[in-house]
């Protein structure tokens, strides 16, 4: 890759209709949201909302419209609103996705759009689940660099190839979309789950790290990687496009090939 780029032209002819298509029209959506508030009732219910939405609106915009205009009690987490903070993973039309990254126009708006909390974690209120078990699994895989050598004065060297080896798993935003899409996790909450394994993978395959064996030992546990049934739900659910199932397979392979 050359560092220097050719200087671009001062002026160019812009192609017609440049910068995306024209206006995307307004459309109506029927939002069906799973509601639960133990302060009011132990029963979960479905609430229906009919909304008029606009071209670039996402599911999060529809939820905000309900909360801000119709029903302030509707509760969900969100922060960055563009798919990097991981707050708003939810089950949209039966698939785990980030509400802020799912454009309404990409869904079938001729039918109701269902929105539910992610599965396998205790529901606290509406779309909010208890994330503590999820973060507990994350913390258990030693998700930090361990280096036993002398600390250099400058940076540790790492080749671009070695850096690339674990690039995919550095993208994880801990949104839990993968773990809560996993059928094994739904039935066995003790299973570490895909996200924890992804974060172990990120360090196991980092050439600077010295604790790979310890992490492999942790994941060789009966609640570790061997519970994975390779259903690929996790890879499909990941809003960051991480090849989660492949990462789990690489960890399995590493456990099998290492000398104990």
């Amino acid at each position, binding site marked *: *890759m050359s*560092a220097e*780029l050719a200087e*671009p*032209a*001062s*002026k*160019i*002819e*812009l192609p017609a209709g*440049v*910068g*995306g*298509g024209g*206006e995307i029209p307004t459309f109506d959506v029927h939002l069906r949201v799973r509601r639960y*508030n*133990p*302060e*009011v009732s132990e029963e979960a219910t479905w609430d229906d909302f009919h909304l008029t939405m606009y071209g*670039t609106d996402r599911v999060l915009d529809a939820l905000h419209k309900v909360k*801000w*205009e119709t*029903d*302030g*009690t509707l*509760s969900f987490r969100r*922060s*960055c609103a*563009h*798919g*990097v*903070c991981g*707050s708003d993973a939810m089950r949209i039309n039966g698939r785990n996705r980030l509400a802020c*990254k799912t*454009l309404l126009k990409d869904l079938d708006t001729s039918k109701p759009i269902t929105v539910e909390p992610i599965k396998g974690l205790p529901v*606290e209120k509406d779309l*909010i689940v208890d994330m503590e078990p999820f*973060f507990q699994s*994350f*913390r258990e895989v030693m*998700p*930090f*660099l361990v*280096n036993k050598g002398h*600390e250099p004065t*400058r*940076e*540790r*060297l790492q080749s*671009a190839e070695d*850096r690339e080896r*674990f*690039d995919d798993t*550095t*993208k994880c*935003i*801990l949104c839990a979309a993968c773990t809560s899409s996993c059928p094994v996790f739904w039935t066995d909450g003790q299973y570490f789950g895909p996200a924890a394994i992804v974060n172990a993978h990120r360090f196991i395959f*980092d050439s*600077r*790290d010295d604790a790979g064996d310890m992490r492999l030992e942790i994941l060789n546990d009966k609640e570790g990687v061997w519970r994975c049934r390779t259903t690929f739900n996790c890879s499909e659910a990941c809003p960051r496009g991480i090849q989660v199932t492949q990462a789990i397979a690489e960890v399995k392979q590493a456990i099998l090939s290492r000398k104990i």
Partner: protein
Amino acid sequence: MQVHKYDVVIVGAGGAGMRAAIESGQRARTAVLTKLYPTRSHTGAAQGGMCAALANVEEDNWEWHTFDTVKGGDYLVDQDAAEVMAKEAIDAVLDLEKMGLPFNRTPEGRIDQRRFGGHTRDHGKAPVRRACYAADRTGHMILQTLYQNCVKHNVEFYNEYYVLDLLTVEEDAVREDGTPYKQKRVAGVVSYDLASGELHVFQAKSVVFASGGAGKVFKTTSNAHTLTGDGMGIAFRRGIPLEDMEFFQFHPTGLAGLGILLSEAARGEGAILRNSEGERFMERYAPTIKDLAPRDIVARSMANEVREGRGCGPNKDYVLLDLTHLEPAHIDAKLPDITEFARTYLGVEPYTEPVPVFPTAHYAMGGIPTNITTEVLQDNDTVVPGLYAAGEVACVSVHGSNRLGTNSLLDINVFGKRAGIAAAEYAKTADFVELPENPLAYTTELLDIARNGTGDEKVAVIRKELQDTMDANMQVFRTAETLNQVLRDIASFEERYRRINVQDKGKRFNLDLLEAVELGFLLELAKVMTVAALYREESRGGHFREDFPDRNDEKFMKHSMAYKDDHAPADGSAESIAGIRLATKPVVFTRYEPMVRKY
């Protein structure tokens, strides 16, 4: 009343808060309170890089970095602070690498570096490769790495605990010259547990504010929904001044209509801006470094192109970021996330189509005033013992009137670390300050007013109108007329705010209630920003007054300091506007004399 006792309480778990926690947690009993989960903080949205004069790919040194920071801030930077930041930048990057941050690498295996706006070789001669990066998710990697190291060091977090009040006491004291004054001391904070709706008192010897910015005062913003300026608002209400609040950065390249950030790294990697004529218009505004001029200049140039009728699209209201001359493989390697944003949210393919962009409210240069040790100031010189601030919530001031790209990720690491060490060291010898009588009184009343309101006003409606007027009148171009319009609008919003009606009356995860409280902070801060902008009758960095288009060093080479003062008259006189009193603070000069700022 639930009372927790810690040596150090850190408010906020973004980059500054967690960098502080890693230091403090190893020295003193530390708790971190965050209104989110740590990895949700907006540090994770930062993209392009973190500058440090490592000189890994070309000649560079920290003095050039200091100069660029001072000039970038249009000389309103405190030069002692900029020097600290540029010097300590090198260790800040190396610290992160040793903690595990996966920086992109050079062919030799060193940390790679790339160009960024306003960062130059030898005092402005040409762009320099100074930004260390991890693709275009450098902030994400910093946030993850710091959280990973907090896990490693068993840092104690209270997640989804909103801090709503700062507990202070005032003591009679006498200055060296014999004048009496009220010395503030910090006793702790009051926090609202989102899950249960219960209030908790955290008594602490040291409190570190690291709660981030207030971008949600604007409509078009790169900021998260949760960036409502809580920390600044709390401090201000408790008599701490806010410094340089008129300076807000508008990042040039937000996705048009959405405000989602497209990193300056795109231009660092060679992307350019074009108007509807296909012209590379930055050649006219900054002939030497063109598209890599600092953000205030690029944002203003873009807005000017649109104003003069050379905008693109059906409403001619944006310009284009052109990456089409770059190799797709290069884009994929260096800018994968932001090109994905263009595809996801606008349906534009950056390989072949230019991307519609327009300035987006991005960063508060101002904030809680601190010295270079991150100790909070209650006036120009007086430190509040035990109170610290770092990151966007603070004003140290390394950014002056315009922050250079990458210098915020640097700021949070350098001053976050300093805050963590200083807070813990202070706590080692200090005693707890006795809690004020009935420490929950203020917060209880604040919540009751919001919860029990029976009026007909909706929080979301007032917030939207606030954001609309701020976008229309307090953005890239300002005049006395537009600023006075904002103040009139805010006065009516404040009146309506007393009649809000929060629908959710429950205790559990009542975000409806918290949004009402957050709106209170937004209103307060928007007013401070606008009053300070009205007072500053000059143009400097991110603050551009069309009625005063030149920089005026004689009158305004000084920081503004806004104090909450309920006795300030409502007569609209220059230094006080209903409830706010403005003062000034000298700028610290060390090496550099102010010069005309050209690029």
